[in-house]
Structure formats: structure tokens, C-alpha cells
């Protein structure tokens, strides 16, 4: 395949970025998208130009590191996959492919296609955990049976890889899908109940503080989420939030 890549280049966080066009030829349709980027970078280095910086690690759709906005869609044209799982067979010969970083205020660009997503870690630190003493004696794992249905729903929500595509897809840069996935997982399990009220309030407050926008129910997040996290989680989070507000008027 012969293609034209239109890539966002930005030298640093405070620099101005711009699109640069790169022609690339002889790409196998069985090549993955990131392998195509590797080939481009090898060619750029050979020519003495600076390679395109992008985040990636596992290259199998689970670490959540890769994050390219391809032809106007986070993770590109295929559904339910990450950028690293996208293959060139999804494009046509002679296509022009536009590649940008995630664009959202709480995810500032570091360089080229790399953005800073540490705000997601901060939200988890605000309460996305169950406080267990890691060295203490705990009840036997089978002491509390959990209905399979709840365990499965918790697992669905827990599949979130923290990639940020939901934020990149949303016109308000809302992080509701990401936050609600964690809140749902822990709210669905008996172990998570004790801290549930505090958790939802703290995580939502943190999300607002970090500049993520509100949800206006366009569901672009669900459509672009590589792990098919459902917006029903947002409904569950809103319910949890409401209950917490009503029952615990003041957060300590």
C-alpha cells in the first residue's frame, strides 16, 4: 500500500504544533498501525530527521498506553480495539491518514503524539480503591459468595484500560466513562460497599477539579471505548453520587 500520513508534530508542551505530510510506500496490509509508524520512523532517522514520538508498550490492547487520534477517531476506524491492534488492512491504497494526539485540556501534549494523562492517576488516588491492609490477616476468599451476575458486571467495568479515548472522543472532555467504570466495579462488589459513599464523592470532586467537562449524554465515549465500557456505568455512578449526597450531607 502507498499512503500519505498527515501527522501532528509538536516539539514540546509549550511549542506550537503543526501538521506535516509524510508519504510512505510498500506497506503490507497485514502490518499493524504502529508497525507502520515504526517503518516511518526508521526512514526518518535514515534521512536525518527526527522520528515521531508516540506512546505504546504492550502492543496487544491491554496496557492503555497507545493513544492516537486517527482520521478523527480515537484509536482509528476499527471498533472495540486500541491503536496498537489496528491493522493496515482497514485502510485503502492511496489513502491520506490524519494522525493527532488526544486533544483535551486535562491531557496536555508532551511531544508530537504523546500526552500527559497523569490526571487519571490522580482521580484513582482520590478514592479508586478498597482500603485493605496489605499485610493483615484477611477472611478466606470464598467467605463471601458473590452472585456470578454481579461479578461479571464488575469485571465488565474493571476491563477499562485507562487509555483516555473516552475523554478524547467527548466534545466536553468528560471523564465520566472512565470514572464510572471504577466506581461501578467497586460498588458492585460487597467488599467495596463500606467506602462507597466517600469514594464517589471524592472521585467526582477530583474529576471536576482537574478540569474534565460534564456529561451531556452524547455517548461518543461508549462508541469509541476500545473495551466497550457501557454508559450504564455512568447511570450507576450518578445514582451512587445521589445516594451519597443525600445520606452523607458533608464529606469529611
Amino acid at each position, binding site marked *: 500500500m502507498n499512503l500519505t500520513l498527515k501527522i501532528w508534530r509538536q516539539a514540546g508542551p509549550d511549542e506550537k504544533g503543526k501538521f506535516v505530510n509524510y508519504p510512505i510506500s510498500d506497506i503490507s496490509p497485514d502490518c499493524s498501525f504502529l508497525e507502520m509508524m515504526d517503518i516511518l520512523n526508521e526512514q526518518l*532517522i535514515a534521512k536525518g530527521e527526527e522520528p515521531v514520538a508516540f506512546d505504546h508498550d504492550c502492543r496487544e490492547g491491554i496496557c492503555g498506553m497507545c493513544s492516537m487520534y486517527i482520521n478523527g477517531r480515537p484509536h482509528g476506524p476499527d471498533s472495540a480495539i486500541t491503536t496498537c491492534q489496528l*491493522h493496515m488492512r482497514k485502510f485503502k491504497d492511496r489513502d491520506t491518514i490524519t494522525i493527532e494526539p488526544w486533544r483535551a485540556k486535562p491531557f496536555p501534549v508532551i511531544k508530537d503524539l504523546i500526552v500527559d494523562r497523569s490526571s487519571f492517576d490522580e482521580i484513582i488516588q482520590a478514592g479508586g480503591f478498597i482500603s485493605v491492609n496489605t499485610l493483615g490477616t484477611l*477472611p478466606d476468599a470464598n467467605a463471601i459468595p458473590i452472585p456470578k451476575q454481579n461479578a461479571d458486571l464488575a469485571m465488565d467495568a474493571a476491563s477499562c484500560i*485507562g487509555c483516555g479515548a473516552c475523554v478524547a472522543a467527548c466534545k466536553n472532555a468528560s471523564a465520566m466513562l472512565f470514572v464510572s467504570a471504577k466506581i461501578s466495579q467497586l460498588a458492585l462488589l460487597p467488599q467495596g460497599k463500606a467506602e462507597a459513599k466517600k469514594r464517589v464523592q471524592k472521585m467526582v470532586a477530583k474529576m471536576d477539579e482537574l478540569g474534565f467537562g460534564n456529561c451531556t449524554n452524547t455517548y461518543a465515549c461508549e462508541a469509541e471505548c476500545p473495551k466497550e465500557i457501557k454508559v450504564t456505568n455512568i447511570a450507576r455512578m450518578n445514582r451512587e453520587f445521589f445516594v451519597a449526597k443525600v445520606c452523607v450531607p458533608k464529606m469529611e
Partner: protein
Amino acid sequence: MATLNSKIPEGTLAEKWTNFKAHQNLVNPANKRKLEVIVVGTGLAGAAAAASLGELGFKVKNFCIQDSPRRAHSIAAQGGINAAKNYPNDGDSIYRLFYDTIKGGDYRAREANVYRLAEVSNNIIDQCVAQGVPFAREYGGLLDNRSFGGALVSRTFYARGQTGQQLLLGAYSALSKEIAKGSVQMFVRREMLDLVIVDGRARGIITRNTVTGEIERFAAHAVVIATGGYGNVFFLSTNAMNSNGSVVWQCYKRGAYFGNPCMVQIHPTCIPVHGDYQSKLTLMSESLRNDGRIWVPKKKEDAEKIQKGTLKSTEIAEEDRDYYLERRYPAFGNLVPRDVASRAAKERCDAGHGVGSTGLAVYLDFKDAINRLGKHVIEARYGNLFQMYEKIVDENPYETPMMIYPAIHYTMGGIWVDYELQTTIPGLYAAGEANFSDHGANRLGASALMQGLADGYFVIPYTVQHYLADQINVPFIKTDLPEFEQVEKEVREKLERLLKNNGSKTVDTFHKKLGLLMWDHVGMARNKEGLQKAVEEIRALRAEFWKDVKVPGTMHGVNVELEKATRVADFLELGELMALDALNREESCGGHFRDEFQTEEGEAIRNDKDFMFVSAWEYKGPDKEPVQHKEPLNYEYIEVKTRNYKEA
């Protein structure tokens, strides 16, 4: 010279760990706040260790390469984690898990360590459930188990095909809690580039901030290394792209012994190589062997037609299929350990029965399981793996059999540690895949996650505390000591040399060449001639690298090529030590298979008389031969046998 003292506590096997804990030194809460610990790595081992040490009250600094601790390579583990809970009541016990692990490791692991691993395995499951890890459950609401290679019981806990993800997110949540509390300080996008030793003790590290390019110094009373395995020395492996061997290599060069460097695991079920642009290999979880049957065409003509694309797998009649694992190993069948399954696949492909366009693949077929259990059951068990396969290969595994081939997956070798997970450098500890400790010559499936969490949650917090107890009067270590100055200078010189080199070839060119060399000569089947050749060729390639590598950019800001260059420079040295160790071990055991040492049927010949030891290598300087030390292995509680998977 450090001596090899494995420091195994007194008592019977079952009493040793309890005895250690009963007699270890403790630090009182007020003093804990005055003691600092560096933990490098946020995989299962690192995140669990950092969180637990933080919770105990120590001041912890934790580092990782990725932009978030949640993205460590452990996230990619699919299949499951072992524990001796015996919930299915199929005869499992701590002893049996211990026995299976020693046997699976082909009698090259230390008894006391492995027993402790089996002992704490049950606590891991309790702990993870308490943290909210959504393990798979049965309809009654209790935890579900599956079986894995090398075991006759079902002891593997799992969370769909994403067990590593869920366990790591559990550890990450514990870590997040400590970060919020302020007991752990997190440093992301940092790459450790060297270790600092002061007065014979590990006291700090030098890192590069991969965003700003800054070279930084960090000091502590003790350093824990949990940086994972070095499988990427082969270029193509199932490891994540950032996985590297550099930290273990730096520790080795600073005086830590390297245990069993040649012990590498090749995983039998990976998606075959398809092109020279390929950047990594994708694993298809071993759990698939529970329900999938492995076969190749009986007739060579059929295999040839398949390779040419003139015959389809589904057109081959049942009687023309060779289920070679079931044929050769009736007791374990498709569930033989990984090394046995990998070699059997290579044997069939080398004999001309391989499939796929390259002839380097075998079938993993779910037809019978789908007929027996229904498609929905298979989908529930392996849905995401099937989807992953289809996205990569563009074929539907519900309809046509998967194609698989062995690939580099895991390194049993690593930094040598004693029972307390301390290396030969006082104050330097190694946990998880980075150490050599528990898997001998071959690791059983679902046991790496178990080991990572055992080390991090249940061993390091005790043993590091034991070490720190006599450090309470040592004030915070300062980073302006001459030792820090000197190591930082060496790091800068190395980076500058790479940047100024201005050669003509990219880093990847060298990495790919090294990978091929390693795969051909230090891979699944090794022999004296090939290994000697490998040593020579690696040396030549290393010389060429330093002459001709091209690293663009500068020290400042993001420079991915520079990061890759430092790692490949280390791989070019580490590869040689692996070949040397393999050359030295004149026997076949576990993942280490020497062509010269096999029976007529192609089964491994182990040599217990001469090689029942851990080889621990000591670095002697850039152009000097390393020195081999031997830690003899004594089996007091297990009868050493030839591994036999033909009968139970």
C-alpha cells in the same frame, strides 16, 4: 568477593518461613519514617512491594518507565494465577503445588523458596479478593478454577483472559492509596540507568526523566529491583516493548551475581511470525490448551499443500491428523509443560509437518470443544482471546483452527538472590521476574503472577524490614556524595558517546540482528558449536554497534531512540553471558535444551551428577571473562526423578 550464602532458615520445610518471621528484626513505627526505600518497577512485584512497604510506614520512592504505574508489563498476563486453595477438592495442597513447581522447574530451583511460594499463595487470593479483584465465579457465587500445564489439579484462578490486568489494577489501587497518603512518592516516565553503592551497600539510583531528559539522583537506605524479565534480548518476544534487561545488567556490573542467565522460557502458543516489519509476538494464553487440541497433518504432502495454500485445514480428515502431544504424552496430553510442548512443535515443523505459509506453525483446534460444550461456553471462557486472534490474523478461530508457534516469553534467570531476596550486594533486593529464584529451569503457567505478588506483598515487606532494623541510626542518605557524582558522570558519558557516535545504522537494525542470532543459537535448541559461534558473533555485533549506531537527537527532552540505544547496548552484553552460561551447562533441563544431550526419542537428558546447581556469574570488568560460582541444590523433601509426562 561476595560469598553465596542462601540463608535458608532452620526448621523443617513447613516451619522455615514461620521461623524466619518469628525471629526477624523489626523496626518501630517512629523509626520507619526515618528509613527510605527505593522500589524500581510497578509490575506485580514492584507495585505490591511499594504499597506494602508504604503501608508499614517506610518512606518509599517508586519508579516506572510508563506514564502510569498501571501500565507495567504485568498488565498483559492473560491466563491466571495459581494457589493451593483446593476449592474444587481435587486433591491439591501446599505440598502438591510445591512439588509440581519443583518438578516443572526440572529440579533446578531451591526447595525452601518454592515451599514458601506455595505457602503464601493462598494469602494472595484472599488479599486480591479483599481488594476487589473480580475473579471468575461459578453460579453459586464461589470462585472458579481452571487447570494449566504441568498440573493434574485445577488450581488456577482467573479473571477472563485478563488476569494480569486485574491483579495489577488491584496492586495499583493499593499503591494509589499509599500515594494519596504520602507514604509512597511516585516517579513515572523515569528510566533507571545505574545503581549507586556507598560503602558496599546499595544506596541509590541514577535515572533519566524521559520527558525533560534530566539526569536525576535518588538515595535511600535500601533498593528493591522489580524491573521484570529480559526476554526482549531476542527482539521478538511476547514482552511489552519497554521491557528490558538493563537494570538487572547494571546491578550485575555493580557486583550482583547473575543467576542462571541461560534459562529462558519459550511459550508454545503464540501467533506465528508473519513479516520482517513485525515488532512483537502475541501470546495466546496457555489456558486455551484446556479445551483446544494441538495437531499437524499426518502426511507431509498435506502439510506442503497447506503451506502453498491449495488445501484447507478443515479439509483434512480426522484420521489424517496427528495429535502429537496426546500421542506422545498420554497422561498430560495437551497440558504438558511449556518446554515440552514447544519442542514437540518445533520437532514436527522441522520434520516438514508444519502449517501456515512459512511451515512454522501448528494447529490449535477448538472444534471438539465447541461441539461438546457449545460455542457460548467457549466464548465465555476465551472470548477476548479469540477476538484478539481475529484482529491480528484476520481469521475466525470459531470456524478454522488457530495457528500457533513457540515464542520467547519469560526469563527464569535473573539476579541471584538468597532466601530473603537479597542479592550479593547488601541492601539490594530483587523481586518478581527480575530475580532468578523460584522456577528453576522452567516456569509453570500461572506461577509468575503468583511469584510476583508473593515477593511483593508477602516476602519483601518482612525481609527488607529485617535489613533496615540495623540501619535506624543511619541518617537520610545524601545525593551529593562522591559516589553519586561518579556514577552520574559515567552515565552521562555513556549517553553522550551514543549521541555523538553518528554512525549509519538505527538501533533497531542491531536489535533485530541480535534477536536472530539469539533465536538461532541460544533459543529452543542449542549446541556447543552454535553457542560458540553466538559468543563470537555477539562480540562482533557489539563492536559494530559502538562503531556504527546512529542515535538522533540530544539528551534533552523526549528521545525514544536514546532510550532504545541504552537498552540494546546492554542486551548486546547480556546476550553473550546467556550464551556462555548455556555453553557451560552440558545437559538438557527445562527450557535449556542441548542437542547433544537427548535420548533417541528426543527427550531431554538431565545430568544431576554434574549440574544440579544454580550458576551465579560474577562480573569482572569490561574485557574480562566473568567468573562462575555454583550454588548446589539439595533436595531433602523431594525425591529427584526424571520428569515424565507420559504417565501421571
